[in-house]
């Protein structure tokens, strides 16, 4: 009996003393007091020091894109730290290129707030929120492409610019053992507040696309966050718009077209869409409606693998060929491109050769 009492008392006293010491240390050594974070030389936030920058920003409702949840394993949560933050940690180095090092780019999940800081983040991140959405419908556009309609919870809405994207979380499922976020452009009009449409192609082995194509069902809930991206409708000039997309790249272009329709924007627009065969064309009825509703809009599909049996009378070859043929005067044009890096690079080449200024070519590579 005595042994039990002594043992219990000793262990209790021992852990008690240590717990007391640690609490004391947390209050004194670990207490950095209140720190000020200045973002973009404009907004100021007072946060409790000692936490990571990412956690401090989240507590102020500022969401930096992060896929791993602050473990330092995804490398997404980069921000520019201009003042404060100390030296770059070994845990950040695998994710930061030499150019970024010189630019003071840091991983916000590793960098701790121990002094007043000045940081820079893209302005639109102030608008980023997390949402839990319900899958309202999944429609097959082609055998490889699906259109997803996600509905917001009652009372929630998203405010995005036409052309921007959101990140969709693919959870752990059979065959995928880690949560990943993948970016998808919003295809629905910005004026529609209660749902968004995404157009998602199937990539063999792709974690998020496999999830969407093979596992996701109507009525399921999915997590998204956004909006992000600097590819969106520009209203600085009144130029003719040259839009180019292949496959699922149609999504942001559609959103831009809807936006022009809803706001009655009177601009000339031509949409060059590249595909292989007529079976790869989709949403044609929607586009036909847009052709009617918009001020001066024309859809120019271009097919690269047409056979005689298709009876195709439209443009043939890659989009480059079609662009080369249709664009005569470069002075009054600006371009919006969305597609694979290869397609974008070759289209930019054609457009700059034609004389369209590079700063008037906006693109979204995926």
């Amino acid at each position, binding site marked *: 009996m005595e042994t039990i009492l002594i043992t219990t008392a000793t262990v209790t006293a021992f852990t008690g003393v240590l717990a007391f010491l640690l609490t004391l*240390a947390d209050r004194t050594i670990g207490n950095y007091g209140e720190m000020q974070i200045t973002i973009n030389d404009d907004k100021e936030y007072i946060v409790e020091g000692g936490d990571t920058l990412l956690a401090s920003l989240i507590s102020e409702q500022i969401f930096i894109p992060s896929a791993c949840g602050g473990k330092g394993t995804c490398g997404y949560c980069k921000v520019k730290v201009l003042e404060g933050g100390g030296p770059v940690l070994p845990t950040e180095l695998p994710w930061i290129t030499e150019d970024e090092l010189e630019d003071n780019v840091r991983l916000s999940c590793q960098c701790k707030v*121990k002094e007043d800081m000045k940081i820079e983040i893209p302005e639109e991140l102030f608008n980023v929120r997390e949402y839990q959405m319900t899958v309202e419908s999944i429609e097959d556009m082609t055998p490889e492409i699906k259109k997803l309609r996600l509905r917001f919870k009652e009372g929630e809405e998203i405010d995005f610019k036409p052309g921007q994207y959101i990140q969709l979380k693919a959870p752990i499922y059979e065959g995928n053992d880690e949560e990943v976020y993948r970016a998808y452009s919003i295809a629905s009009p910005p004026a529609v507040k209660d749902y968004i449409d995404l157009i998602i192609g199937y990539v063999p082995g792709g974690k998020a696309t496999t999830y969407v194509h093979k596992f996701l069902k109507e009525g399921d809930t999915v997590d998204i966050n956004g909006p992000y991206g600097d590819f969106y409708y520009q209203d600085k000039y009144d130029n003719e718009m040259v839009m180019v997309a292949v496959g699922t790249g149609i999504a942001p272009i559609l959103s831009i077209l809807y936006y022009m329709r809803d706001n009655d924007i009177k601009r000339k627009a031509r949409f060059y869409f590249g595909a292989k065969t007529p079976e790869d064309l989709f949403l044609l009825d929607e586009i036909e409606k847009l052709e009617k509703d918009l001020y001066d809009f024309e859809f120019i599909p271009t097919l690269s693998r047409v056979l005689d049996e298709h009876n195709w009378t439209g443009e043939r070859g890659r989009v480059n060929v079609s662009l080369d043929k249709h664009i005569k005067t470069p002075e009054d044009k600006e371009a919006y491109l969305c597609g694979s890096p290869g397609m974008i690079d070759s289209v930019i080449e054609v457009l700059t050769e034609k004389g369209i200024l590079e700063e008037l070519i906006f693109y979204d590579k995926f």
Partner: protein
Amino acid sequence: MIELNPFVIFFAAIFTNNMIFSYFLGMCSFIGVSNEIPTSLGLGQAVTFVLTFTTILNYLIYHNILVPLGLEYLRFIVFIISIAAFVQLLEMVVERYFPNLYYALGIFLPLITVNCAILGVSLFMVIRDYTFLQSLGFGVGSGIGWTLAIVAMAGARQRIKRTKLPKGLEGPGITLIITGLMALAFIGFSGIVQIQ
């Protein structure tokens, strides 16, 4: 107890009684963080640092608290708690007052709170009935030995990265095999000195 010079114990802990190659202790972080030499060196330094201090601390706790109270059998739980608390405290202090040290090895500290090599050293110290100086030599030596092992492993793995491996052996598999081979090589030292 054989009267061994603390320096002999120090060298023995590095070469003949290496924590990794003789006892296979601390394998988790040894396998997990041995991809690159700079990181493994940082981790090794952190382990050495913590080993040195926890050995001293546990020596004092054992001989001044547990033995007088006749509670030697509590050493397992008490050592674990004291190590965990000490590492926490150490991390806070280093982070606050020694920023340079923190950037070199502080970020590894949470990783080694539960490193069994650290508990192992404290327990060996008790089992082998070391004096204070012997314990100190053993603690520091074990830390350096662990560092030596993980840096050597990181060097080997940096080279292996560029070679083709059978799929099943990639990662931990090949690391364990190399550890075994290195352990065989370290047996070559065993004639120098034996501590037990």
